[in-house]
Structure formats: C-alpha cells, structure tokens
C-alpha cells in the first residue's frame, strides 16, 4: 500500500508540475499538465454532450495536434477526453433522450423518463456523483492492479502475446452486437487490412498496388475517422425527424435523502462491474454500462420501475461506464495491447511520442505512467466541480441544430486527416472507409471488432512468426506453455459458450432489449 501511495505521489507531483512553455511565441511558466487535463475533460464533456460526435472521432482528430506537446501532457489530455465524454454523454441522454455517446444509450431509458417527470436535476446529479465515485475507485484499481500485471507481462514471450491477442479478439467478437460469425469475419477483415504496407521481416510491399503512400500501411486514425466519424454523420443525416430538447427548467439539482438511499448500492455495484469489464480485452465503457443496467434490473427491488424513471437505472450504468473507461487503460499500459478503439488511438499517440507501450513503461517512465493515473483522479474531480454549475451551458449547446454541427465536424475531421502527412491521399482513404463503414452498418456488421483486428494485425503476425521460429514450426507450442495455453483455452470456452443454443438466444435477447 505504501508503495502505491508513493507512486501516486510521483504522479500528483507530475500533474501539478510547473513547466516553461511557449504559446504563440510567448514563453511563460504554467502548470501545463493540469491545464491540458482541464482542456481534455472540457472537450470530452462537449463531445459527449453533442450527439453524433464520439470520443473515437475526436481523439483521432486531435492526434495530429498532440505532435507538438510533451508526451505526458498529450496523453493526459487524450485520456481526459475519453472519461470526460462519459460525463457529457449522460446530459444529452437525460435531457434529449439521445445518447450523446454510445455508452449512454441505456441512460436514456430511465434518465429521460425522470426528466419528463420534472426530475432532470436529480438525474443529472446522480450521473455526476456516480461517475465521480466510480472514477475515484477505478483510479485506485488501476494503481493497484497495473504493477503486478506488468510484472507478469514482463515474462511474456511471443507465444503468450499471440495467444493473448487471440483472446482479446475473441472477447471483442463475443461481446459485439449481432451475429457472432459476422463479428469474427470483421475481425479477420481488419487483421488483413492491418497487413497492408511494408512487411517488416522481408521488406516486401504488400497489397499496395504500387501506391507509395501505402508503404507505411494505412493510418489507424484515417480508418477510425472514416468508419466511425463519417459513417455516423451519414447515418444521422439519413434519419429524418428533429430532436426535441427538453425545455423544462432544470431545478433542484440535489437528489433527496430518499434518492441517496436508493443510489449508493447501485453506484457501488456499477463501479465494481464496470471496473472488471473495463479490464477485459474488448471491454470498456460501452459494455460496462449495458452490463450494469442489466444487472441492476435483475436484482433491484424496484425493478418494476425500470424504464419508467428509476433512479437506479441512471446511477448504475453511469458509474459503470466511467469505471470501465478508466480501467480499460490497464491492458494498454501493462501489456501494450489496446482493448478497444479508443485505447488503440492512445496506443497510436504513445507511438507518435516515441514510447513503446508495454510492461516496461511503468519502470522506465514512472512519471508518465503515474502522472497519467493521477491525472484521472484530478480530472474526475474537475468534472464534478465544473459540470454541475455549467449544466445550463451544455443545455444551450444542445439547441444547436445538427445542420450547423455536421459541416463543422466534417471540416475538423478533414483538417485533422490532411495534416497527418500533408497529403490529400489520407482524405481519399478516409472517404473510402466512410463508404465501407456505411455499407457495414447497413449490412449489420459491427465496425468495432474490425478496428481492433486492424490494430492487432501486424502485432499478431510478428509474434506468430517469432513463436513459430522459436518452436521450429511446431504449432503445439501455443498449448505447451501454460500461460499461453490458458489464454487459448479461455478463448475456446468463450466461443463454445456463446454458440450454445440457450446462451445464443439469451445473448440475442439482451441485445434486442438494449437496442429498443
């Protein structure tokens, strides 16, 4: 415990450190890291509030901007966007019945009903309090679990890494919406797309059709902005119908004593479940909020109220998504393996800064590692302090019509993609992936597993090659090493469980329920 406090101390010192910086030609001394944290969480809340802009597209847009920042400031800001978006997402879910962010879909169910009964204030406050509690606990979870995990990970060889990635991909498909076979096919498709570019071992240019821009492979940012950003805008434009902003005034922010009695247990349960699901490869905020809502509905004694404005239905998922968002940093920081699309972008950001993600980060760059973790707690505090008073401003923002918003988003996306390498080719690729993403949505193929495959493709091939070289071509090596065999057995069990007829039916039911 003492070690952890010491480590967190290093982190807090790093977060509040004064730095000499030059902004627009003027040099000054500022607590730069904490400022970037503030900017990150405010931006995150903003995009969380606005429906149709997700954290993936935003972080992708801002990646080029972080080139000029120091690594710690860049990562603190990007992390702030992710968990800030979880706060903001609840606002539009409760007030407009539109999830500002995909993890807030379930908050709409009860949050909007509460708002319709004039209890928007307590709903918003519950979401904020739940998120804050979850944020504090999750920060501790990361601080407690990351060091031992990193120690184990240091012993991993190529076969363990390969099997771990298989497990991550299997988990991503099992947890994806809709058809399992389609999700697996999307993973394979992503893995293949990830192989485009120069093969590291032989130097052969693969699948590039003589296009020199493809020599370094397709940029992940480009794919993410096309598949998530563009496809989402197009899908939004196809749906007719204006959204109605909840016009009733938000009064009485504070929940009553009765409310507090009802929410403390769901908040803790949501936090616990979210923290666990966040660590899983393929997990994160989205899965956590769905899981927590389903769990709460099952065990709450007020389950008949769910869907009609139960405060538990806001508290549990909102705590869970924030906890999940934060603990999903664990696999990235300790194993160097991203669990979801946002973490894949963070991995990209680390690589841009010249940091190879993996277990060695904690020992080689303790300031960076613990600074990031400490910033999460500080960021959560800022969110809860700033956001409740600012709620009026966010509500105003919601009245901005989408026809004004989407050209602005498009412009920022195009500028971001173009500036990656100052080449229009990246914009072309983004447009192509926008088309592909649109078709995938129409064919009910989830893009999230594909993105994960895309990131892991080159890593998997590399580790597979090394493992096979070491074992002299014996594929059984993956089952002879205990850790590697463990990962593979868990993957197989997961797949078998999901394919059992009973579970399959249940799984479909759960997703159908959530979709409506």
């Amino acid at each position, binding site marked *: 415990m003492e070690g952890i406090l010491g480590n967190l101390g290093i982190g807090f010192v790093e977060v509040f450190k004064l730095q000499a910086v030059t902004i*627009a030609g003027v040099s000054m001394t500022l607590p730069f890291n904490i400022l970037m944290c503030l900017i990150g969480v405010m931006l995150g809340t903003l995009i969380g509030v606005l429906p149709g802009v997700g954290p993936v597209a935003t972080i992708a847009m801002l990646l*080029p*901007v972080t080139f*000029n920042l120091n690594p710690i400031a860049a990562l603190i800001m990007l992390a702030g966007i992710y968990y800030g978006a979880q706060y903001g997402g609840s606002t539009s879910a409760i007030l407009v019945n539109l999830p500002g962010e995909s993890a807030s879909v379930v908050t709409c169910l009860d949050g909007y009903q509460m708002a319709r009964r004039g209890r928007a204030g307590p709903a918003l406050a519950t979401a904020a309090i739940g998120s804050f509690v979850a944020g504090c606990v999750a920060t501790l979870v990361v601080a407690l679990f990351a060091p031992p995990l990193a120690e184990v990970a240091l012993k991993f060889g190529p076969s363990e890494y390969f099997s771990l990635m298989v497990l991550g991909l299997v988990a991503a498909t099992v947890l994806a919406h809709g*058809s399992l*076979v*389609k999700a697996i*096919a999307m993973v*394979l*498709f992503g*893995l*293949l797309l990830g*192989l485009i570019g120069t*093969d590291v071992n*032989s130097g*052969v240019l*693969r*699948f590039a059709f003589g296009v020199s821009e493809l020599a370094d492979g397709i940029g992940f940012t480009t794919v993410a902005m096309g598949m998530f950003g*563009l496809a989402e*805008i*197009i899908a939004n*434009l*196809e749906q*007719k119908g204006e959204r109605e902003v909840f016009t009733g005034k938000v009064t009485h922010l504070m929940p009553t004593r009765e409310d507090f009695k009802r929410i403390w247990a769901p908040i803790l349960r949501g936090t616990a479940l979210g923290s666990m699901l966040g660590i899983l490869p393929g997990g994160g905020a989205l899965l956590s909020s769905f899981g927590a809502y389903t769990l709460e509905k099952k065990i709450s004694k007020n389950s008949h109220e769910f869907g009609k404005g139960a405060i538990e239905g806001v508290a549990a998922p909102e705590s869970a998504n924030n906890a999940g968002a934060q603990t999903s940093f664990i696999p990235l920081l300790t194993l160097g393996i991203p669990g979801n699309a946002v973490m894949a972008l963070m991995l990209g950001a680390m690589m841009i800064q010249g940091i190879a993600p993996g277990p060695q980060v904690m020992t080689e760059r303790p300031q960076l590692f613990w600074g990031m973790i400490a910033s999460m707690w500080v960021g959560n505090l800022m969110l809860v302090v700033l956001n409740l008073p600012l709620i009026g401003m966010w509500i105003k923002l919601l009245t901005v019509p*989408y*026809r*004004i918003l*989407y*050209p*602005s988003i*498009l*412009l920022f*996306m*195009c*500028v971001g*993609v*173009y*500036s990656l390498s*100052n080449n*229009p080719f990246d*914009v*072309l690729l*983004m*447009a192509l992936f*926008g*088309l592909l993403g*649109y*078709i995938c949505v*129409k*064919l*009910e*193929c989830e893009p999230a597993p594909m993105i994960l495959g895309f990131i892991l493709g080159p890593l998997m*091939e590399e580790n*597979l*090659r090394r493992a*096979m*070289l070491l074992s*002299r*071509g014996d*594929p059984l090596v993956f089952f002879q090493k205990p850790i590697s065999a463990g990962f593979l057995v868990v993957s197989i069990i997961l797949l078998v469980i999901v394919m059992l007829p009973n579970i399959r039916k249940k799984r479909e039911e759960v997703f159908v329920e959530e979709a409506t």
Partner: protein
Amino acid sequence: MLHSARLDPEEGGGAMTIRNPRDFWAGVMFVAFGLAFVLIAAGTPAFLDPVLGALKVPGYQIGSAVRMGPAYFPIVLGGLLATLGAVILARGFVSGRSGEEVRLTLPFNLLDLVIGLGTFALLLAYGDRVGLSLDGAMLAAAVVVSLLAVRWRPSAKPLVLILAGCLAFGYTLKPLGLVGASLLLIFISALGGHEFKWREVAILFVVLVVFSVLVFVKGLTLPFPVCPGFIDNCPIR
C-alpha cells in the same frame, strides 16, 4: 418518399429466395475481400500464365511454418475470411429472423456503386489526357458523382455529398487554400442535409474559416496555404 433500390436480384424466385439480404450481401463482400487477399498474396497459378499474359499476379513468397514468408499469414487469414463469408452468404438463404422478412434498404444499387467508383477510376486514369491534374480529376469526379446522385438518387444525397465534400476539400487545399477548400466542403456537405439555407451556410462558412485560420494556421502552425494560389497578395500568410 424515400427511394430505395433493393439489392436482391432473386426477389420472389422459387426455393432459392434470399431470405436475409443483409447476410447474403455481407457474405458476398467477405468472400470477395478474402479471395482478393489470397489471390494477391499467393499470385495467380502458373498454368494460367499464357491466358492471363500481362494480367498475371506474381504473388509473394509463402515460406514455411518455421520461416513464414510475407504471403503466409495473409493467405491463412484470407482463406478463413472467404470461408466464413461463404457461411454467412449461405445463411442468407436459410434464416430470416423469426419468420419476418428482413429488408435491406440501401439508397443505391450495385450498378450505382460501379458507376460511382468507375467515374473516379476513369477520371483518375485518363484525366491527364484532357488536361486535368490529379487534383482536378479528383474534383471533377466528385462533382460528376454528386450531380448524378442529386438528379437520380436523391436518397443517396447524404452519403454521396458528404464523401464528395471531403474529397473536394482534400484535393483543393493546395491549389485553392484553406478558404477555397472549406468553401467547397461546407457548401457541398450542407447540400447533403435536409434543409439548405444560403444565409445560414454562408455565416457558418465565415465563422469556421476565421476559426480554422486562427487555430490551425496561426495557433497550431499547420503548413496550410490560406488563400487560393492565384491571389498574389494574400493578407494572411
């Protein structure tokens, strides 16, 4: 009225009816991509060389399980993808969800897709013969496809105009500067929405251009030209 061309060719035909067009076409897509990756990685078989002539694909080295060549992993993955694709395709004939018919509504059909992508391919390949630069050819293709969509496929407007706007921005940023490129992007993409109000879009354009110049060019010092190349004395550099 939402125009929606349906993609299933076998509508109402006998025992081989496509029950779930979403599965069917997803399967087709996966099989096509899987086979394409296998074909490019493995190359076309040697006995076809006389037939294919210059079209022959050489492929990459496969290697062995111990020392995998660049083609090994892609062939395995591509084969798996094509197999799964075939399973999904077959499911399209068997399953309909709980008896009810699953409809696939795309605002374009397969022919439209070929025409759209073909326009780009043609103009990019032969644009220089009519004096178009790469930037010009891309812009021309984007405009042609947009006009086609506006005239004949109004329900595809969001898709086509959003993508065309992005392309127009990317390929005119150097010749026309940030001002010209964002003008194209904002007006083209705004036309893809439900309502289009000239004044509103014009104000939006001015606000966004001022913001982008201040933040991206001045603040973040991105190396973008601000004014079109043909204006000699641009006030902002």
